[in-house]
C-alpha cells in the first residue's frame, strides 16, 4: 500500500509527459499533411472546406454544400457546415480554425482589429417583421410605438390602439444577430432586457410562444411568418419581399460568409457556387432569403443605404 501511491503518481506524471509529447507530434503531422495537400492540386480541386457560424444561415449553406459536393467536378472537395452562432463563426475564421465564418452581422460590429483581414461574401438578405399574438387587435405600429413597447414605456396594447391587454415581450438574447438587426433597423436604438420579458434563442420557439401567449410581441424572419401569428406593418409598410427589395421596408440584413484574406481555391469554388444563379435563384429563395443581386438598395457596415 505504501509503495503503490508514489508509483501511481510517477506513472501519472510519466503519462502526462507522454501525452503532451503525443499532442505536439500530432499537430506537426497534421500541418505537414495539409501542406502537401495544398501542393498537389494542380489538376483537380480537392481538400476540405469548413464553414462555421450563424445558425440562421446554416440551413442554406448546408443545402448548398450538399449540391456542391454532388457535382462531379467538385467531388473531391469535402464541405463541412457547423453551427455555433455568428460570434463563433467570426472568431474561428479570424483565428484560422475555419475556412468560412458565417455571420448575421458585419464583422466590424463584433470584432475590432481582426475584422480587417476578413473578406466579406454576401450570400443573401434576411428580412424581419414584428409579429404579435393574434388577439391584440393591432396591425400597424410606427417606429416610435415599437420603441416605446420594447423599452417598456408602453405596457398595454390599448395605448397603441389595441385591446386592453398587457404586452409580453418575446425577445432574442442581447448578443444575438437577429436582435441586433431588429434594434438597429426597426427601433434605431439599443434596448435593455426588461423585467418579465421572455428571451428565446430560436425562431421556432419565439413563434411558438408568440402564437400561444396572449398579448405577446416578438420579431421573426419572413420565412417563419404564417397565419399562426399576426404580422404587423412597420410604419404602414407591409413586410414583403418586394418592399424589402425596393428599399421601402428597412428591417433587413445581409447574411455574410467571411474568409480570412483571399480564399484557398477550393473555398473560392464553393463561395462562387453559393453566389451562382443556381443557388441564388433556387435555394436562397426557397429557404426564405432574398438574393443579394435582386436588391435595389445596398447597405454598408455603418448602415448607410445607397441605391
Amino acid at each position: 500500500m505504501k509503495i503503490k501511491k508514489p508509483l501511481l503518481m510517477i506513472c501519472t506524471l510519466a503519462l502526462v509527459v507522454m501525452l503532451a509529447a503525443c499532442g505536439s507530434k500530432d499537430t506537426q503531422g497534421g500541418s505537414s499533411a495539409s501542406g502537401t495537400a495544398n501542393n498537389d492540386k494542380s489538376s483537380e480541386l480537392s481538400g476540405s472546406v469548413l464553414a462555421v457560424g450563424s445558425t440562421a444561415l446554416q440551413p442554406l449553406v448546408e443545402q448548398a454544400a450538399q449540391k456542391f459536393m454532388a457535382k462531379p467536378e467538385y467531388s473531391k472537395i469535402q464541405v463541412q457546415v457547423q453551427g455555433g452562432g455568428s460570434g463563433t463563426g467570426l472568431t474561428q475564421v479570424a483565428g484560422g480554425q475555419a475556412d468560412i465564418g458565417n455571420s448575421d452581422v458585419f464583422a466590424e460590429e463584433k470584432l475590432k482589429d481582426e475584422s480587417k483581414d476578413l473578406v466579406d461574401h454576401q450570400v443573401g438578405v434576411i428580412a424581419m417583421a414584428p409579429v404579435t399574438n393574434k388577439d391584440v387587435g393591432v396591425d400597424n405600429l410606427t417606429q416610435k410605438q415599437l420603441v416605446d413597447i420594447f423599452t417598456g414605456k408602453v405596457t398595454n396594447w390599448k395605448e397603441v390602439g389595441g385591446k386592453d391587454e398587457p404586452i409580453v415581450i418575446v425577445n432574442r438574447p442581447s448578443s444575438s444577430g437577429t436582435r441586433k438587426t431588429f434594434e438597429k433597423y426597426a427601433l434605431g436604438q439599443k434596448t435593455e432586457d426588461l423585467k418579465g420579458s421572455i428571451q428565446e434563442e430560436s425562431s421556432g420557439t419565439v413563434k411558438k410562444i408568440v402564437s400561444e401567449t396572449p398579448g405577446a410581441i416578438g420579431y421573426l424572419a419572413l420565412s417563419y411568418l404564417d397565419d399562426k401569428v399576426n404580422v404587423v406593418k412597420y410604419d404602414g409598410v407591409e413586410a414583403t419581399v418586394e418592399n424589402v427589395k425596393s428599399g421601402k421596408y428597412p428591417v433587413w440584413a445581409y447574411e455574410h460568409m467571411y474568409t480570412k484574406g483571399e480564399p484557398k481555391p477550393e473555398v473560392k469554388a464553393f463561395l462562387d457556387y453559393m453566389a451562382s444563379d443556381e443557388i441564388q435563384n433556387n435555394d436562397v429563395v426557397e429557404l426564405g432569403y432574398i438574393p443579394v443581386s435582386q436588391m435595389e438598395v445596398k447597405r454598408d457596415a455603418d448602415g448607410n443605404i445607397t441605391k
Partner: protein
Amino acid sequence: MKTMDERPVQVGSARSGRFKKHHAEDLAGRSYTFICVALLIVIIISIVFFVASKGLSTFFRDGVSVSDFLFGSTWDPEGNQGDPVYGVLPFIFGSFATSLLAALIASPLSICASLFMTEIVPGWGKKLLQPVIELLAGIPSVVYGFVGLTVLVPFLRNVFPGQGIGIAAGSLVLSVMILPTITSVATDALSSLPRGLKESSFALGATRWQTISRVILPTVLPSILTGIVLGMARAFGEALAVQMVIGNAPHIPRSLFESASTLTSVITLDMGNTVMGSAHNDALWSMALALMFMTFIFVLLVRLLERRNRI
C-alpha cells in the same frame, strides 16, 4: 483504484514458466488501468485549468471586480445602457431557486416511491416501478423541455397569473428530471438495510408505519440526503430543459411565474453569439467557473454525507 488494491497477491511464484505469463498479464492489466486513471486525471485537470483560465480573465484582464460580478444585479454585457455591466446575481438566484424548489418537490415523491418499492409492496411494486423510473432517467432533456413548453407552460398560464414561463415551470420540469436520481439512491439504501433492524422493530410490536418512520427512515437519512444532493447537482447543471421554459430575462423575478434565468441557460443562450476573448464571452466563462465550483461543493457534500453514512 480499489480493484488494483484488491488484486490477489501472488503467492508461490517460484515456478518460472507460469509466473512469467501471470506476471505479464498482471503488468498489462495494471498498466492499462493506470493509463485509464491517468487519462481521467489529465482530462479533469485540463478542463478545470481551461475554464479557470478563461473565467478568471474577467477579473484580471477585463477589470471586473469579483463582488460586482457575484452580487451585482444588473446584467448588461452589450452595454445597452452605457458601459457594460456584468452582475450575475439574478442567474445565481435563478439556479438556486429552481434547483432547491425542484428538490423540494421531488424528494417526498422519490422517498415515497422507494419506500413503496422496498417496504410496502416489494414484489410487483418494484417490478412495476423500477422500469418506469429507469425510463424517466433515460428521456433526453430536450424532450422534457419541449413537453414543459407545450403542456406545462400553457397550463400554468391559465391557472396562475403571468405567462406561465418562469421559475415554477423550470423547477417542475427539473423535479421530474431528478426524480429517478433520488429514487434510485434511496431505493439502494433501503434495500441494503440489514434485515435484523426491521425484524427487531416488528418483534417489539411496532406497526409497519412505526417501523418505517421511526427506524428505517432515520437510519437511511444520510443516504437519502446524498440522493437529494446528487439530484440538486443535476438540476443545477441542467441547461436545455430549463432554458426552454424559464423565459431567460436577466432579472430577479418578482414571482414564480415571471421570466427568470439560470447560470446554465444564459451560458447556452449567449455562448455561440459572443466572440471568444471578448469581455462578454469571458463573463460567460466566469459563470461556468462558478457552476463548476458549485459542483465541487455538491460533490464535497456527498462525500461528507457518505462518511456519516458508514455505520
